[in-house]
């Protein structure tokens, strides 16, 4: 009896479960369930692949051992990771998936039967899986390093564009060479592997600053395509479809992120935001006005409407919780408190929403970019806490600024702006911010958490 049709049918069921899960993940009310459904689909697919008839020695001990090791590490790191470190975690996980596709490509080269025709689909899919997997691996590792600060953000290779194009051409040349040899030449395969690994590095290093989220999303998509490549090796439908679903949806998500920053994908990949020094500056007088905590406490208590603009600095200082306490204290005084969330606040789109949710801030208090900008003219005080680039007015009017054209939270439309900041350093994009020198702006220097703590006490006492 031929079981392969039954296996394919079972795979089809798990594909449908995947699709339902992914669909669920893209709507707020069903996201949690969608994730669980997708996980269920994955579990089903893995079980099917374990029991589908195969012709080898099965080697189940190896498989179970590896699954326990990987699953254990994955589960512990998922439980332990701080929410602020989420972008790093996603890029690291992503690189591991890519590594798996790469390893499959390498192993299957070794497994090609002697006398295999080199100019064949089998060899081409091996090359493809190995190349895409390798790019995803090293690219994700570079992204990980840049995000957690172990690689300098403006770390680049000399003449990155030329190196990029040259190594890509090298990859194509080596692939052609492998396929036109009379028999398998492993030396060429290893050369291709090395160059692919290098290309991943060369591809990601020129990108930095606020563009990192876009790169992570793009690499996510690349790993999906790598899974598809590995699936083509085995003619395995669930890998092909699962991989391409991630590949295609990842591209859409990447483009949506670029739109949120008002940039094109090409501009992100080729443009060099992170490394540039900043625009020519503005003609504003460079004098900053400071405010003290007790004055601010009184100003807030007598305000009608206060909006908080949180940035990554808030999360790093672990000040979300105390921020939420201030929100409660002010609401008790009859002040309306809202949060204005820029689409790329934090280190990933939507990252700030996760961080605020973690500290119990109610979902309906979060305003997205447009409603927030509409509400600023009627807002008495805006508190900018640990945010910088997303409130930088030079994105509107300074054509020489590297962030020119990015939609910003236009906090200067409010009656007063108070910026919580450690010092006068520039933001993640490395650009000076004329907001700090604006007429309505006052600065509150110091650690965000410490300042907010004092502010909370003053509000209670005042």
């Amino acid at each position, binding site marked *: 009896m031929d079981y392969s049709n039954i296996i394919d049918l079972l795979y089809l069921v798990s594909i449908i479960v995947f699709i339902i899960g992914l669909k669920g993940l893209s709507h707020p009310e069903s996201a949690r369930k*969608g994730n669980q459904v997708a996980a269920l689909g994955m579990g089903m697919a893995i079980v099917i692949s374990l029991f589908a008839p195969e012709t080898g020695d099965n080697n189940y001990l190896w498989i179970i051992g590896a699954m326990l090791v990987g699953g254990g590490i994955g589960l512990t790191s998922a439980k332990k990771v701080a929410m602020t470190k989420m972008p790093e*975690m996603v890029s690291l996980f992503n690189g591991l998936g890519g590594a798996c596709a790469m*390893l499959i490509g390498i192993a299957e080269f070794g497994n090609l039967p002697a006398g295999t025709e080199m100019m064949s689909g089998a060899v081409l899919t091996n090359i493809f899986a190995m190349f895409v997997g390798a790019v995803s691996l090293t690219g994700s590792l570079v992204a990980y390093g840049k995000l957690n600060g172990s690689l300098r953000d403006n770390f680049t290779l000399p003449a990155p564009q030329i190196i990029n194009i040259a190594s890509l051409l090298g990859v194509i040349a080596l692939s052609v060479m492998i396929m036109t040899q009379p028999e398998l030449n492993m030396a060429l395969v290893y050369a291709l592997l090395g160059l692919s690994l290098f290309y991943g590095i060369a591809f990601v290093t020129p990108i930095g600053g606020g563009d990192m989220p876009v790169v992570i999303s793009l690499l996510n998509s690349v790993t999906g395509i790598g899974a598809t490549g590995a699936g083509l090796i085995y003619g395995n439908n669930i890998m092909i479809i699962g991989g*391409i679903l991630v590949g295609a949806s990842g591209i859409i998500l990447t483009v949506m992120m670029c739109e949120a920053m008002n940039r094109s994908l090409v501009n992100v990949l080729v443009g060099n935001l992170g490394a540039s020094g900043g625009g020519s500056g503005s003609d504003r007088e460079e004098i900053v006005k400071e405010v003290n905590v007790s004055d601010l406490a009184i100003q807030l208590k007598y305000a009608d409407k206060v909006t908080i603009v949180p940035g990554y600095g808030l999360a790093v200082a672990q000040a979300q919780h105390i921020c939420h306490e201030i929100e409660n204290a002010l609401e008790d005084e009859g002040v309306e408190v809202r949060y204005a969330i820029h689409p790329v606040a934090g280190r990933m789109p939507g990252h700030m929403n996760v961080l605020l949710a973690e500290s119990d801030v109610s979902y309906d208090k979060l305003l997205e970019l447009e409603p927030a900008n509409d509400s600023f003219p009627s807002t008495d005080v805006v508190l900018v806490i640990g945010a910088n680039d997303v409130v930088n007015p030079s994105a509107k009017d300074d054509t020489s600024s590297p962030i020119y054209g990015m939609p910003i939270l236009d906090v200067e439309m409010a009656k007063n702006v108070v910026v919580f900041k450690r010092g006068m350093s520039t933001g993640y994009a490395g650009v000076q911010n004329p907001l700090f020198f604006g007429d309505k702006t006052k600065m509150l220097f110091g650690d965000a958490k410490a300042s907010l703590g004092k502010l909370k006490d003053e509000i209670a006492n005042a």
Partner: protein
Amino acid sequence: MEQIINFLDDNTLAMLSLLVLSSFLGMEIIGKVPTVLHTPLMSGANAISGVVVIGAIILIRRADATDYLTLVLGFIGIALAMINVVGGFAVTNRMLDMFKKKERKN
């Protein structure tokens, strides 16, 4: 030309159709996602790309019990991809749990 025709046997064409249709499906599924879900969606999709683990499982199952090179490569492959799968789904669940907590309160 003959070689190109060799590439395009029935199986390859079926695969190709599958690829094209699935990519359209992938693009359609996402549609308009609110910013609040970008991070969980990315992380969930990331876990799904760990489906590549199945390739490593097939690799090991087809190997001879004495083919240690393949077994070791496959072992590493499965372990790494499982980190991606289990870690990815678990961390996404953790993030989305935080949103759920809010809804109950309101």
